[in-house]
Every structure is written in C-alpha cells, then in structure tokens.
C-alpha cells in the first residue's frame, strides 16, 4: 500500500488558525465508508513551528502532503490533496 506523509505545523499561529482541526480531518478520512476510504497508508505528523510565518511572510497553517507545501491550509484542501495523492500513487 502506498504511503502518504502529511506534516502539519503545530506551532502557535498554525494551531490558532486551525491546524488541530486539519489533523482531525485527516484522521476522519479513515472513518469514510470503505469504498471511499483512501487506499493508502496516511501518516500524520505534527511538526514544530517552521518559522515560515516569521521569516518568509507566508501565512499558516502550513501543511506538507508528500512534501508538497500547502499554505493557509484548510481541512478541505488537505483532505483533497491526500485523496489526489492516493489515486495518483495507485495508478503510477
């Protein structure tokens, strides 16, 4: 089974702007009906502040799905990226 790594910033600003909810949303994918569940192993890791918000004038929450950065991440965008990566991984 293909592996998908999801890194979610759990720094102060990102948590305040909803990164805990993103982690919960990623976990919630496992509760989907079997037919809709991503056929991949999704590994979610909370990471400390990346300092991107402080030095690069970017806005959080920051999430990386298989290394690809999502800025101002919202749960729907992250879930969609995982589902996409999962389908892409399978056909590849």
């Amino acid at each position: 089974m293909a592996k998908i790594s999801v890194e979610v910033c759990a720094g102060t600003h990102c948590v305040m702007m909803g990164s805990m909810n993103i982690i919960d949303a990623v976990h919630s994918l496992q509760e989907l009906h079997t037919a809709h569940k991503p056929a991949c192993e999704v590994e979610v890791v909370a990471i400390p502040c990346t300092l991107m918000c402080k030095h690069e004038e970017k806005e959080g929450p920051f999430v990386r799905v298989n290394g690809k950065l999502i800025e101002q991440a919202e749960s729907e965008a992250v879930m969609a990226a995982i589902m996409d990566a999962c389908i892409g991984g399978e056909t590849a």
Partner: protein
Amino acid sequence: MRGIFTPITKIRRQVFTEVARYAFERDLDQTDFNHFYESSYRIIPGEVATYRDSVFKERAIIRERIRLAMGLPIRPSITHQPLTNGMQEAASADKHLQLPLANIIPFACVACPTDRFQVSDNCRKCLAHPCTSVCPVNAVSIGKNAAIIDQDKCIKCGRCKEACPYHAILRFGRPCAEACGARAIGSDELGRAQIDEDKCVSCGLCIVACPFAAIADKSEIFQLITALREGQTVFAAIAPSFVGQFGPLATPGKIVAGIKKLGIERVIEVGWGADVGSLHEAEEFLREVPNKKPFLGTSCCTSWAMLAHKTQPGLSDCIASTHTPMVASAQQIKQEHPDAKVVFIGPCVSKKVEALEEEVRPYVDYVITFEELMGLFAAKDIELSDMDEVELQSQASRDGRNYAVAGGVAQAVVNVIRELDPAREVQVMKADSLDDCRKMLALAKAGKADGCLLEGMACPGGCVGGPGTLSQIPRAGKAVNAFAGASPYETARDNDMQALTTAFKNTQK
C-alpha cells in the same frame, strides 16, 4: 460550530490576537486608541468583501468585536459614537466587565426565521402527497411544482415532515435559539435575535452556534495584560480541561511555561479546587440527603446552577453550597498572597459572570478562555513547543482533573462518599446540556431524583466542550483522561490533606 474550524473561528481569534498585541505594545501613559480603526483594516484587508455582502459591514462588525474584546459594550447603531468611546477607562488593570456578557451585534444578525417548516427541492409533487393528508390545520396544499405550506396556518407540529417519503420538508430553526438550553433567545422588532437577560445563564453556546458570527462575549484580556505590564503579581488558576487545548506538541508543562512567559507568577491547577469541592459535596450529601434535602446537585458548573436557581427557585437549596473549584483555588491563592491578582483560565464563559458576583469578586480578578489565552500567546509570539517543561505548582487528584469531562464530577464525589461511608449506596443522575439539565430539574421537582446525586453541566461533553476551547471534544477528552491518570493521587481524599483542610474551612459559605 463546535469542532469545525470555520471563518468565524478565524475572525474571533484574529480579534483576540489584535487586541492582545496592542495591549502588550501600547504606550501605557499615552495610548492612541485610534489604533483599533487600523485593526479592522488589518483583519479585513482590501476592497472586496470576503465574508458578507460588504467590506464596510465586515469592518464595522470587527470594530464591535474589538470593543467587546476590551470588555466594552457594543455601540448603538442609531447614534454616532466613536469606536474609542470608553477605551481610556477600560485600559486599566481594574475589573471593567459589566453585564450583559453575551452580546448580539444587531447588524451582523441576519434574522433567521424561528421554527419554520419549509418545502425543499426534494419535493417530487408526488401522487400520494401524504403531507397534505396528515396536516391537522389544512396548511399544506399542492402547488404548480411542489407542496406549499401556508405559514399563517402552520402550527409547526412537524407531521408533514415525518410523512414525506422524499425527506423534502425541513424544519428551519434559528441555530442560536436551538443552542440555548435556557430558552433565552427571542426576537427584536426587526426579527433579529435578542437575548432575554433574565433567562440567560451565560453558557456561551449561542456564541459558537451562530453561523453568521453575530454573537460575541466580552473579554478581560486587555485588563489582564495591563496588570502584567504594570508589574503586578498575577497568579493563574487553570481549569483541568487545559490539557490538549494548544496543539499536539504543547504538553501540560509547556503550556504552564508559556503562561509564565507572559509574565504570570505562578500557575495553579483548578483541579485542586475541584478536590476541595468533592470533599465538601460528599460531606454535604452524607449529612443532608435525604433528611434535610431530597437530593444534592453539584455546584461546579455556574450555568447549571444559575439555571436551577432561575427556573426552579424552590429547589435552590438542593444545589450544593460549595464554592466552585475556581473560587476555592482563587481563595487559596489570595490567602497566601493577598496582594496578588488572580486570573482564571478555562473553557468557560459563564465563569466571567460568576466572577462578577459580590462574594467572588474579591478573589477572582479576571476570567479568560483558552481561546483568548491562545490570542495572548500569538500576540507575544510564544512558541509553546520550544518551551522547557515547567511543573504545575499544585497537584490535583485524578478525580479532580476528571471534573473536565461529563460524568467526572459525580464520580469524584461518589468516590469520596464511598470512602467515608462504604455502606452508602448513591444513585447518580447526569445531564450535559442545558436542555437535559432542565429536564433533570423537572424530574427532580416531581420527586424522581430523591436520594440522588445530580451532576449538571451546561456544555455537551462537559467542560471540554465549552465555548472557549480550541480542541475538538474527543481529542480533549482523551488528553484529560491521560493527564488525570498521571496524577499521584486517585481521589480527592488522597490529595495533600494539610492544604486541603485549610482551604476546606474557607470554602463553606
């Protein structure tokens, strides 16, 4: 929306952070409050509306939210009043908050219809149309394309909704009013939501239920930060639901370290005050039930206790006479350090109202929520995951820490009763929403709760489901259980008796 991060959550937290930042940065002697006009542009930038029909309206709402965050009343819409009105007076370390706590910003309210049955696109205009047959007042007819409900005739019985095979009939309610277990929300002359202050018990659930961000409560962050900046000694009493609220990397020790970095002297667990409460309530139960009181209700949830006192004054005596864990903890702090200020940090907004009570005022100087505290961390750029762990300077028992979850309070009291009188059987009744609390009170009034211990909580899931939280309820519940399990003491009686006994004496009203 509890548990889902929406644009409303974002706006609320941006306002807390903005107000906290200026409270930390302002010149204490020469503050220019016009700064807050700029704030509304920072939070709502550009010329294109993001959330509503107009960017000007969005900013106007932000400005009222800023006033509330400073503890000020919202301004009347019908006369001119500068945003900065009253700010100079509010910008001190003195308590400034006044009722009403929860405020509906009238022009943000979209006047949702109250309790209305509507036909949706699901209607197939079917041949059977049972919706018409079951209506007791002949309000449903079949129109050109779909069923039609005559709103003047409709008595809102819901029968048509039940009968429709396509689930095409929906009940349309007002989310704030449905969240209000005290049934305190009515309408003003323009059909907008209006809170009946006589009924409101300040649980704050309407604030997180309104999908148009029209309701907000007042805050004391500005006054707290001012006290810190003036160099006053401030102690924090933190509610047991704090664990897990600030992200997966923010361990309890790091949260305490972060609070201390804000300039707070010491952080005390309110779970310790919960232990005091458990001892007192167990003792009161054994002494009074059933001979003097038919049953005993727990007292730690302010909104539940207010609901009981307001709706069933005849049962008032049956709510335990114990001070809440917040007050017990604050009293202990003030006893040791009479000149210190005390801030209660919790998931709860009704504690803000409790702290206004004559008896409580001398002990609790400020009440802020976890969400507001997060605003302070963000304003000061405090990275909790970078902190070195700091130990809490008080220990609460497992049972005291479990006060944060529904069922935990009664369990803590029952455990003490069992230790004191192993022969005594205690029946427990529980409710963790104000709606259920009201039903429980009705049962109690009918004598159906005689001999019982009643645990009342306003928030679904208990304190971890409070309006001032950041974490989803299941995640928070797990964190609380783990933290409770790590306590060196199991029940309230196992806790340090010396300190408890001293506090115990001061806790009886």
